[in-house]
């Protein structure tokens, strides 16, 4: 079945440093989605990428979708303490409808 690998599992940064998490799927995805879960909270939808090679920005966050639609990345510039949480990528295979396969997540901690 479809697998989505996400690295790194944990990342500790000093406030102001940059952060990147990477996501790789074993199968081609129709789209890739990113979610953020704060400690003790619930996953919150951040963004969806649909097109091959697509790049989207949300303030300090930059999201990319690979040309082959099998990999993606999330880059945060100049991290802040509010960025703390676990970032999950998720994607449906072409035939799986809304059945998302989630990556294991990257847990980000930011030291002030």
């Amino acid at each position, binding site marked *: 079945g479809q697998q989505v690998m996400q690295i790194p599992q944990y990342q500790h940064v000093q406030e102001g440093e940059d952060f990147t998490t990477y996501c790789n799927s074993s199968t081609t995805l129709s789209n890739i*989605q990113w979610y953020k879960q704060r400690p003790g909270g619930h*996953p919150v*939808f951040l963004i969806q990428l649909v097109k091959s090679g697509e790049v989207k920005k949300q303030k300090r966050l930059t999201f990319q979708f690979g040309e082959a639609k099998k990999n993606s990345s999330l880059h945060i510039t100049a991290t802040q303490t509010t960025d703390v949480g676990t970032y999950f990528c998720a994607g449906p295979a072409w035939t*799986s409808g*809304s059945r998302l396969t*989630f990556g294991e997540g990257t847990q980000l901690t930011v030291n002030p």
Partner: protein
Amino acid sequence: DTEVTQTPKHLVMGMTNKKSLKCEQHMGHRAMYWYKQKAKKPPELMFVYSYEKLSINESVPSRFSPECPNSSLLNLHLHALQPEDSALYLCASSQQGASWSGNTIYFGEGSWLTVV
């Protein structure tokens, strides 16, 4: 603030108890989901209702029984659970039916379940 509302936020139940988790959304979404999440793990899909009909059951044990009374409500009935079923149970919804791969998922705040 989430527009998917879940009750209760916390639940402690014994292994012989029967309890229910409730979920409500008023966004007119056509699909509703139950996910289970263990600590430091991603959400794990349990059930999907699409247009009020059960469309996906991810081989969940029968001690979990979903119910969709109408397009806005989703319940999860719990009976004879085991301690290993302790987890965060997340309800979610999406705008279109479950067969559409473009759906994005809107999660509720979850119900923290402890089985003793």
